[in-house]
């Protein structure tokens, strides 16, 4: 009995060691590929930066571009420098090439071991996809939250912050659900939880806005009946000729 247990344990340790021996070279190859290509990328980026700086690339681009235009490369370049943009693009192309090369080497070293490679590699790409989803979702949530906040404040809504927060969490919950779905974690539980949360937030917002806007709507209707022109808004209609003359504002 004891011998059988010892044998089973030895077999198990042996299998794990074999697996590690197969796994480690692939991992080292991946790391090596990334490090070497990143170093090459940094070198190339430095060369690109020096060459373009010597050519006065930024100045040449600036003379051909329109300030403020969406097509202006300088507008969305880091530190408004197309040279820096090209240098960074070069570096990241090399780093990504190294990653692709490393994963390929990792895959090759596992080709004979079968199951782990089949499960692990697709899952790695899923993790990358989920991380990208989370980053994109967070950025979008922040952008939309600010847009709603500013728009609501300029529309003189008292609950602007609440509205902005609601939009932010709607997008974040949606992003979280998408990331989990992408990772195939949770299955139907995630879908169900997402539906409940999303619906809950929407209902809360609708109730809050509906109840909170009663006064606003009343004031708005009263204003429309009593005063045709609001002094706050850009009164862009010609002044009325009726007596007495209404005080008007012209912002432009």
């Amino acid at each position, binding site marked *: 009995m004891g011998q059988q247990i010892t044998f089973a344990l030895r077999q198990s340790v042996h299998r794990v060691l074999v697996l590690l021996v197969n796994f480690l070279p692939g991992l080292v190859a991946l790391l090596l590929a990334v490090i070497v290509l990143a170093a090459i990328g940094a070198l190339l980026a430095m060369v690109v930066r020096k060459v373009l700086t010597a050519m006065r690339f930024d100045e040449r681009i600036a003379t051909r571009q329109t*300030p403020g235009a969406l097509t202006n490369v300088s507008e969305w370049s880091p530190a408004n420098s197309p040279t820096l943009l090209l240098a960074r693009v070069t570096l990241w192309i090399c780093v990504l090439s190294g990653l692709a090369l490393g994963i390929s080497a990792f895959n090759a070293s596992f080709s004979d071991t079968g199951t782990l490679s089949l499960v692990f590699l697709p899952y790695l790409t899923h993790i990358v996809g989920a991380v990208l989803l989370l980053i994109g979702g967070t950025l979008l949530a922040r952008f939309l939250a600010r847009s709603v*906040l500013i728009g609501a404040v300029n529309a003189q809504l008292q609950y602007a912050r609440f509205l902005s927060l609601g939009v932010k969490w709607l997008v974040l919950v949606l992003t979280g659900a998408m990331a989990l779905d992408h990772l195939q974690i949770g299955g139907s539980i995630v879908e169900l939880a997402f539906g409940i949360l999303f619906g809950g937030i929407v209902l809360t917002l609708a109730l809050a806005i509906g109840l909170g806007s009663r006064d606003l709507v009343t004031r708005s209707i009263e204003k429309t009946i009593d005063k045709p022109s609001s002094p706050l808004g850009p009164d862009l209609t010609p002044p009325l000729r009726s007596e007495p003359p209404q005080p008007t504002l012209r*912002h432009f």
Partner: protein
Amino acid sequence: MSTVPAPALSASTHAAPDQAATLICLPTLTGEAFDATLDHLRRAFPLQPIIVATPDPVPTRSSSDESQIRILNYTSSSSPHGAWVPTAADYLNAWTLAREHHPQAVLLLGAEAASVSPDTLRRLVSGVFDQQDLVLPRYPVGPRDALVNSAILYPLTRALFSQHVRFPLPIDAALSPRMAERLATTAQRLTSTNQADAFVWPVAEAAVAGFSVRDVAGDQRTLPLPGAIDLNSLLSNVAGSLFADIEARASFWQRARLATTAPRVPTYATRSTAADANPLDLAPMIDSFRNAYTNLRELWSLVLPPNSLLNLKKLSLTPPETFRMPDALWARTVYDFVLAYRLRTINRTHLLGAMTPLYLAWVASHLRMVDGDATLAEQHIEAVATAFESDKPYLVARWRWPDRFNP
């Protein structure tokens, strides 16, 4: 665009038979408005041959009846959506016509051109014949008119480009040929990137080129209304365009000593109407600012230094009867928004949107202070412009060293 040598300017108002002294570019006008404009032009330039360019079909009787007026039809590349000031496409059209006809002066008239008096037309063109490159009208406005110009456009242009021109985004403008060419070069860049209706800032352009600028008093004119109704989008468009222009010309205005034009003695081209005497309810604007302070404080803290935020907090707690935004605070706030626009501290659309409540606070403060008095309003606007000039070193310092600590 090919460079055409600018014809020499002459004080003479007579030109060769085939060469008119003045080219007048009109916007789209109705038949009656066109006739009224022609009548004004005839009275303004009785002996001078002029060319009138219109995008509308030319009435046949007009071309045969006038001896000194030649009427041309041109194809306007701008969409007739009713921009209230000339846009890039208009400046480009003006230069295209000037290149063909070699006038000594180009007069670009904006919407509602029929309401420009003959005297104003004459003064504008005479300015160009007096060796000025850019002559802009200073139309009388009421204490509650042209508030964006008074709060942002005029003070910024005066402080940064040292040009005492009251309306830097003009409705009408008289240009020398070389000024028209210079503006067309800028307009060409805009139209080639599909921004034909973008604003052009002729005062800044003239200042950078070292051209002479003058503003002349104009008679009462119907001021055209912007096509868009929404204040937020209008303010974003205009302020964004000016901030982008300031960013593009940073190397010019950062110079310590500019060749400044002599500050003009303020002449109050103002008008007061019966409506101006009526009190205006400022409470909605003050409430809007208070609401914004509660909700946008975090966003403003990314743009404004702590000292400005503290002053805004005090302002938000001030009762409406004593609501007064200090000129220095407003100047510093606008400069900080210009800096944030340049540094992209936050998304530019958000930045300009977050500026609207602050502008409304300035408007409320200004209107409460001037109390419907046009002369007081002009005095305050001059004081605001002086505050911008005094605070210019702050902008220059932070433009050069953005990360420096600012209390």
